[in-house]
């Protein structure tokens, strides 16, 4: 077992005029080197915030983050710069995450310049070309600007930027959500090839369950800032326990005819994450909720090796 990243009781609260917004509330997990952890949940569940806290785009309110055994929760700017060599991020929207006034080569080379990786220009240019080849961008697009390219190619630029410093962990925040299915498949294949070749570890944040199943080794399900279930990918789809996980899976429209459709339609919508009441946050929508669920927060328990659930009603 080679744990690359460990997150312990991570919390991120935001101050809002209405009170404390609990974006991430007490999330703990570990990831093995070279594996992919999928993080799923609906909009507003804190999955993107968690990714951003891990790569230090936001500072954690409480809890600990360990990278290769070292506590990296609080770092100064020099340590942070060093950390960026190890951890990078791919952003959701390839239309707004790239500077429109930089060429493709400049965009990909920017991290190399910031970190002063190369002393001479020749090595720098060589590395940029190498990165373009790795992500499947033709040399001829090097001097073009992002607006001249389609979404798939732009996302390849985002990936090349993330790879430039040879990181060990990449947080992918909905990297294929803005793309069409035929292009989405190209990018997913690319990400999986890169993982095989370079031994990358991914935290893959998405709301698309079929994508997360395809790419992940483990899956973490979040609801209103809390983790409700975490287990190996296969287990989640075959032997899920939490009522929210069940509802989420049953809400996926099935792309086939002549199949039995039994969708469990959840009542209500996600409640406010500002000053949440004690008790299970899913209880107001949960068909199995009891009095205990409304008054007492369920603890995260390991019901069998590798399978964690936070629910009063799950017994085994």
């Amino acid at each position, binding site marked *: 077992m080679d744990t690359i990243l460990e997150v312990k009781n991570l919390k991120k609260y935001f101050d809002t005029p209405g009170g404390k917004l609990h974006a991430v509330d007490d999330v703990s997990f570990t990831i093995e080197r070279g594996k992919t952890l999928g993080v799923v949940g*609906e*909009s507003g569940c804190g999955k993107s915030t968690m990714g951003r806290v891990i790569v230090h785009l936001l500072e954690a309110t409480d809890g600990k983050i360990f990278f290769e055994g070292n506590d990296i929760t609080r770092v100064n700017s020099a340590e942070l710069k060093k950390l960026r060599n190890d951890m990078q991020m791919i952003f959701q929207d390839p239309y707004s995450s790239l500077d429109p006034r930089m060429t493709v080569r400049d965009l990909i080379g920017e991290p190399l310049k910031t970190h002063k990786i190369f002393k001479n220009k020749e090595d720098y240019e060589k590395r940029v070309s190498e990165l373009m080849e790795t992500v499947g961008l033709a040399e001829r697009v090097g001097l073009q600007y992002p607006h001249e390219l*389609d*979404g*798939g190619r732009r996302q390849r630029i985002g990936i090349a930027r993330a790879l430039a410093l040879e990181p060990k962990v990449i947080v992918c925040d909905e990297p294929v959500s803005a793309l*069409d*299915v*035929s*292009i*989405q*498949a*190209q990018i*997913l*294949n690319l990400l*999986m090839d890169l993982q095989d070749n370079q031994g990358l570890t991914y935290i893959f944040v998405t*709301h698309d*369950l*079929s*994508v997360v*199943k*395809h790419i992940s080794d483990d899956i973490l399900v979040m609801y209103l800032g809390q983790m409700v279930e975490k287990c190996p990918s296969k287990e989640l*789809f075959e032997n899920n326990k939490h009522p929210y996980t069940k*509802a*989420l899976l049953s*809400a*996926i*429209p*099935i*792309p*086939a*005819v*002549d*199949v039995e*459709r039994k*969708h469990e*339609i*959840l009542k209500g*919508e*996600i409640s406010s994450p500002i000053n949440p009441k004690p008790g299970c946050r899913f209880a107001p929508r949960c068909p199995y909720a009891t009095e205990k669920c409304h008054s007492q927060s369920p603890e995260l328990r390991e019901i069998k090796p590798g399978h964690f659930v936070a629910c009063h009603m799950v017994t085994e």
Partner: protein
Amino acid sequence: MAENILEIKDLTIHYVVEKETVEAVNHVNLTLAKGETLGLVGETGAGKTTLAKGVMGIIPNPPGKIRGGEILFEGEDLLKKDKKAMQKIRGEKISMIFQDPMTALNPVMTVGDQIAEVLRLHQHVSAKEAGQKAKELLEMVGIPGQRASEYPHQFSGGMKQRVVIAIALACRPELLIADEPTTALDVTIQMQVLDLMNNLKKQLGTSMILITHDFGVVAEMCEKVAIMYAGEVVEYGTARDIFNHGCHPYTRGLFESLPSLNEDQPRLKPIVGLMPDPTKLPVGCSFAPRCPFCTDACLEKKCETTNLTETHQVKCDYAVRTFNGEV
């Protein structure tokens, strides 16, 4: 056979921008029977939304130009109607649900007033009566009537989309065009909205065109499916035809590039390449440059639409041969 509520014949819509012409919709033929739902599937830029706007008569001109064809709604050609007549039809007989509920609503008008507006325009009812009916419509889509006096920002995304649905259904239209109605919503909310639309369709007998890129949504909702690529309908049939016997290389490519929830695939099979630039469409088949079965003939000339069965049409000779088991 059921009566057709909508027949689109040889419709071509172009956008003329300076010296370039964007060929958005090219010679499209479609029919929709009364009470049925047609799924219009394709990727970004396939011309789905332009086609829908064409039916609604809201193609901006300039730059949009309808180059030819007919849109027969209940037997009358909508393209021959003047502005005034279209205004009467729009909202009353045909209405549309737009993709993004966040931008489709007026932020400085209460949702009740926005629903009442449609009723006052088309049914000339009093303000009081319209307000009362607006509340009933809100209840119908599952929002408490007393929230009619609230503004859009006080609603969540799923509820805003319900308000948009309530507006679209206010006059009980014969035909509802829904442009990606659930794309901006989470899966559990999406299921609520789809369920609502299905129930309303059953109650009111509305015919529907559902634009989407999600085959899951199509399978849940539609009787008929049309696959669009670069402004053309490349395959058309019942949901069963398309899901079980879909044979156009593009249709098959779309299905193969979807990650599956049921089986393990080590690698996905994407469609290589990109959609052609709509200002420079190839002379031959638009899909030919990306097609694994492309021949020289495909590059020179487009295939004609062939009827495979009574309900199933495809625009590809190779697909016809595979369907007949010749390949």
